[in-house]
Every structure is written in C-alpha cells, then in structure tokens.
C-alpha cells in the first residue's frame, strides 16, 4: 500500500501547486486562459512537453512494445521528434505572433478573423471538442489504471479514476493556465528524473539487457520467427504500410487545441528556441526506456503473471471466486490450474475458490511461482489483453515499495496531462461560443471565467462516467490513434492554409471539416457494425474496388488498403484536396483582411488592431 500512499501524497502536492497559482491570478480572462502570455522559457518547455506526453506516451508505448516490440519507437517517437519541433518552429511561432498582435486565444478565433467566418467556426469548434474528449477520457482511464496498479488492486479502477479526475478538475478550476503550466512543469521534472532512475533499477533487476536480448534473439532461429520473442527485437510484427502511415500522426500535435493554445502563453518568441531544440531529446529520454522495457518484459515470467492477474478477465474471475462466468463458461486459466501437474497450481485454485486470495496483487505473486508451460502460455495471452499495465508490473516486481510509489507518481504525472485538454476545452467554450455569441459583452468578464469553470466541472464528470463505461472495450493506444490523432492530423491542412495560403477560404475550411466529420462517423459505424473473427494479425476486406481492397477490418481497427495503412491517410488526402479545390471555387476574404495576415515586407503594422 506504500506506493499508493506516495502517489496520493504527490496528488496532494500538485493540488497545492495549482491552488497556489490561483493566489497569483489577476482575475482577468487573459490571465485565466493563457497565463497573461507571460510564461518563461523553462516553464514553457517543460510544460509543453508534459502537455504532449500523456498516459499514452508511457503506459501505451510500453504496452504496445510488449505486443509489437522495439518498432514502436520508430512508429511514433522518432517521427514526433522530427515533426513536432518543426511544427512548433513553423506554425507555433506564427500562432504566437498572431495571438500577440490580435489578442486571439484559440484556433477558431484565428480562423474566424482570417477567413471572415461566423458559424463555420462553431462547426470547427464542435469537431475539435468532439475529438478532444476521448483524450480526456484516456487521462481518467490511465489514472484509474495507475492507482489500481501501484496499489496491487486495493484501490479499484473506479476509485482511482475518480481521485485523479477530482484532483485535475480542482487545480484547473482554480489555477487556470498558470496553475496547469506550473503543475505540468513539475510533472515533466518528475517523470524525466524518476523515470531515468527507474530504468536503471529495472535494468539491474532483470540482470542487464544484454543477456535478455541475446536470449530473445536466439528464438529467431525457430520455425516461426514472427511468433517468437525475437520478433520483438525487429519490426516483423508491424506492417510496413502501417509504419509509413504513422508519419502523418504527429501533425496532429500542433492542431490539438491544448498545444495550439499553449503556443500563445509564451512571454517572448525566444521561448520557442530552446523548446524546439530540446524537445526531441525529451522524447528520447522518455520513450526509448519505455519501449525497451516493454519489449524485454515478455521474458520476465513474474511480470507477465502480474499483468495477467490484473487483467479484467482475471479480476472478474477472482471477484466471483472462480467458477463459471455469466455465460456459464469456465476461464481457461481455471481449467489449466485444475489440470496442472504442479501441486502449487491446484493449491492456488483451491485458495481462490475459498476466497483466500482477495487481491490481484496476491494472485500475481502466486502465479509468478508456477512453472507449467501451458499455464505460462495462457498467462501470456491474458497479459496481452492487459498490455498497458506492463510498466506498472515491472515497477511492482523490481522496485522497492518507496521507489515504486515515486515511479507510480511519475507515471501519474504523464497520465494527468488531461488537465491541459480540459483547460483547452473550457477556453474554447468560453471564447468560441460564450464570448462569440455575445454573452461576455452582456454579462461581463467574471461571468466568462465562471462559465469556463462550470464547463471544467461538467466535462470532467462526463469524462469520468464514460471512462467507467468503456474501460474494458479498447486499449488506450487504439482509442487515441483512431479518433483524436487521425482527426487532428487531418485538420492540419486547414491550419496550414490559414497561415500560408492567401487564396484559401472559409468554404474550403468547412469542406475539409465536414470531410473529417464524415470519416470519423464512418469509422465509428464500421467499428460497431463489423467484427473480425479470424486468426490474430489477420484482416477481412470491407470494401473493394475491383481487385483493390479499399478498407479492411482488423481486430481492433479499420485500415486502408492491403498495406494496412491508418485511416489518417485517406482522411488527410481528402482534407488537402477539399481545402484546395473548394477554396479555388469560392470567393476569398476581403483584401484588407488578407493584408492583415500577409503583410508585405515593412508594412506589417499598418492595419493592426487588437482586442
């Protein structure tokens, strides 16, 4: 229980920091939403990094590495290390300058001003909000999983999620952007420093990476290398088309409202300089250890046993003290325990039936001692259904309790990046809807801030309830990629056209937005209406054009063509095409408006108005 207590102490600390920031606030809207555009370089870098590193970055990446191997680093991390700093350099600096010049606080405010649009901006707001909410849900899910993991199942998922949601809601509610930025900077320090210590300790615990990696490599000589442990040291399990299509995903970063809004908080544009240089290094420090540890964890039977023990299926089995499930079927694990030649296995089953094994943690400890090959294979299958718990299982097994608590707190720091998304959504609500439709003018600035705070409360409660409902249906990684990442990456052409193409129009932006909405709706429908029942790693065609497969159904997602590309590829291509074609076919904004955003050299200040 000590690790859980350390995590609770950490939560109390971030709550204090957030509320301390509240005491520094001026009560003005610009202070609550963008910290009065006053963040210095260090806080800007650390906070931006924490904002972009979510539970997905540490739990999702190590979990996916447990399934796919070291290729996960190239899949997302190195691409992000290239594209995100470049996007900050090219787009982020321009957003900062425009925000400074015209007082904008959201992307939709910029679109409305640049393209002379009204309700179309509301459509873009609705799409952005719809795509960001899953991201918030992921944060709550990660919080619940983390507390459940570090407490060995004593703090249940629903309670852990509730505690995290409450803490995040509180400091966003009181501290606004300043509180969120300070907490995020603290979180970055936490997971970079403590994460590095964890890596060293776990590496020593497993006896060094060299022997483990060489043992895994030796399995490649077997008859089915793709299914061997050695495949995790290669990219055999990642389809090349899928790998290539991940190139588009990091474009989503600068389109996420919480990142774009964060670009407006810097005191000087110089804050971007160190950020773009050091950002790739921060990614490296966090992702490389997470991927390597997730990969080698597959050779740690005790870790695999703990992951299996904390899977939903086994938790439910434990809760009902073994026996048949709701459909009358027995868990295969129970059958194997009963039939095992190992007396310890049969003794364990008897204890579960007698209710003597109450917690998943205790079950994991007992299962880790079993040395029966069929049981080990089954545990591995169960662990794969709970892949995101791999990092927590490693910590639980290899770290002393106090350090495990600190590391749990570091993971919690990643998980709690949902604070920025909640704040961003409330900022968008306040600026793009409340103020745009005249309520601030009528009711005043205080009412605007309180409307944002009310939005924070409602959003957090909704996110928590959804996180409870969808927990067992999909992994953190899949939800994030399918909805938020693909959608925001496909909005990138809209932002690029806004900032760099004079001839672009609001109708082009609307067409691209509607295209993305259609794709997301189609994807959701296809996910719900179809299933894949073939062997693991396979796919069933969904839509064919002659011999060419356009879309196919896989286990957890819909993919594009037989190269198994992510849906972001057709979504992005359609967005570019529609933005271009519809803009050319419609009337551009007034010349004076275009001149404000594309000043000729030397007359950039001629028509500036702010407010």
């Amino acid at each position, binding site marked *: 229980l000590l690790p859980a207590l350390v995590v609770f102490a950490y939560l109390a600390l971030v709550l204090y920091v957030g509320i301390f920031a509240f005491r520094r606030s001026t009560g003005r809207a610009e202070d609550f939403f963008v910290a009065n555009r006053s963040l210095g370089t260090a806080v800007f870098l650390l906070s931006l990094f924490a904002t972009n590193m979510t539970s997905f970055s540490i739990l999702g990446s190590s979990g996916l590495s447990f399934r796919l*191997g*070291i*290729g996960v*680093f*190239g899949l997302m*991390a*190195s*691409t992000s*290390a*290239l594209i995100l*700093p*470049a996007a900050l*350099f090219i787009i982020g*600096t*321009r957003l*900062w*300058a*425009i925000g*400074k*010049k*015209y007082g904008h606080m959201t992307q939709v405010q910029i679109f409305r001003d640049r393209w002379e649009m009204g309700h179309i901006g509301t459509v873009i707001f609705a799409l952005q909000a719809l795509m960001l909410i899953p991201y918030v849900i992921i944060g709550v899910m990660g919080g619940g999983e983390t507390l459940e993991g570090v407490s060995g199942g004593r703090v249940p998922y629903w309670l852990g999620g509730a505690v995290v949601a409450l803490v995040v809601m509180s400091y966003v509610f009181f501290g606004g952007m300043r509180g969120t930025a300070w907490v995020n900077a603290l979180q970055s320090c936490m997971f970079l420093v403590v994460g590095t210590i964890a890596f060293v300790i776990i590496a020593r615990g497993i006896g*060094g*990476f*060299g022997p483990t*990696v060489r043992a895994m*490599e030796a399995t*490649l000589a077997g008859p089915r290398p793709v299914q061997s442990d*050695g495949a995790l*040291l*290669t*990219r*055999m399990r990642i389809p*090349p088309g899928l*790998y*290539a299509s991940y*190139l588009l995903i990091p474009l989503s970063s600068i389109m996420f409202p919480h990142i774009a809004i964060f670009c407006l908080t810097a005191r*000087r*544009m*110089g804050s971007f*300089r160190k950020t*773009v*240089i*050091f*950002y*790739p*290094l921060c*990614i*490296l420090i966090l992702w*490389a250890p997470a*991927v*390597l540890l997730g990969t080698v964890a597959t050779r740690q039977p005790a870790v695999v046993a703990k992951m299996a023990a904390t899977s939903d299926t086994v938790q439910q089995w434990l809760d009902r003290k073994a026996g048949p499930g709701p459909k009358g079927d027995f868990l295969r694990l129970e059958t194997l325990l009963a039939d095992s030649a190992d007396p310890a296995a049969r003794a364990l089953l008897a204890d579960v039936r007698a209710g003597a094994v109450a917690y998943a943690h205790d079950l994991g400890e007992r299962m880790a001692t079993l040395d029966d090959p069929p049981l080990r294979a089954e545990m591995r299958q169960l662990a794969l259904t709970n892949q995101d718990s791999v990092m927590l299982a490693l910590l639980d097994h290899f770290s002393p309790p106090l350090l495990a608590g600190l590391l749990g707190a570091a993971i919690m720091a990643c998980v709690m990046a949902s604070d920025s998304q909640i704040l961003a959504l409330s900022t968008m609500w306040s600026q793009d809807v409340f103020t745009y439709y005249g309520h601030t003018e009528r009711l005043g600035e205080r009412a605007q801030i309180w409307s944002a705070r009310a939005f924070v409360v409602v959003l957090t409660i909704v996110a928590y309830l959804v996180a409870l409902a969808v927990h067992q249906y999909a992994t953190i990684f899949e939800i994030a990629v399918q909805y938020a990442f693909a959608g925001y990456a496909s909005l990138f052409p809209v932002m690029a056209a806004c900032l760099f193409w004079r001839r672009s129009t609001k109708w082009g932006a609307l067409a691209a937005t509607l295209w993305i909405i259609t794709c997301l709706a189609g994807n959701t429908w296809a996910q719900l209406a179809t299933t894949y029942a073939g062997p693991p790693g396979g796919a069933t065609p969904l839509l064919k054009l002659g011999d060419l497969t356009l879309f196919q159904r896989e286990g957890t997602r819909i993919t594009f063509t037989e190269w198994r590309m992510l849906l972001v590829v057709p979504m992005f291509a359609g967005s570019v095409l529609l933005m271009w074609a519809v803009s050319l076919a419609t009337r551009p904004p007034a010349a004076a408006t275009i001149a404000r955003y594309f*000043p000729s*050299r*030397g007359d*950039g*200040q001629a028509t*500036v*108005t*702010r*407010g």
Partner: protein
Amino acid sequence: VPTTPTPTTPTPDPVRPTRRRPGRSIVALLTLAFALLLALRHDYWNWDTPRPLLFGFLPVGLWWQVLLTLLASALMAIMVRVAWPAHLEDQALEAERRHPDP
C-alpha cells in the same frame, strides 16, 4: 567640480527595424535536410533483423531511430540559428507597443 544634472525630456522608445526574413536558399537547404531525415526514418532494410546490436543490447531498429532523434535535435538547433523567423516577433511586439492592453 560637481555638475548639476540637466533635466531631460523622456524620449520615445526607438522603433527597431523589423529583422529580415530567412533567405530562400537557406530555407530550401533546411527543407531538404528535413526531408532526408524523414526518408531515413523508413529504414526498411533493417526490418527483419536485430543486428547489429549497439552496446551488445540495442537492436538496430531501435538505435537507428534513436540516432535520427538526435539528428532531429541537431537540425532544429541549426534551424533556430540560421532561419529564425525574427520578423514575426518584431511585428507582434511592435503591434503590442502601439496597442497595449488597457
């Protein structure tokens, strides 16, 4: 001999001329370098093998990508040094100077 300071009238802040945009040839070269790094990310020749192992435990599919990440940081440092869009900051600060917040 002590001198009496003469009263001076406050002078307005000098308006610093807007700094120049980065040259097109520099931008083209940096774009090319960036595209090269993106292309190198697709190291399909390393797909099915962990060899060569770096330090005896890092598979090539990992250390190659780590190397690219380090190169990305180096490229960003060069971009910041030779192609920083300082003109944007000058325009924004000038706008703020002319129209400060109430």
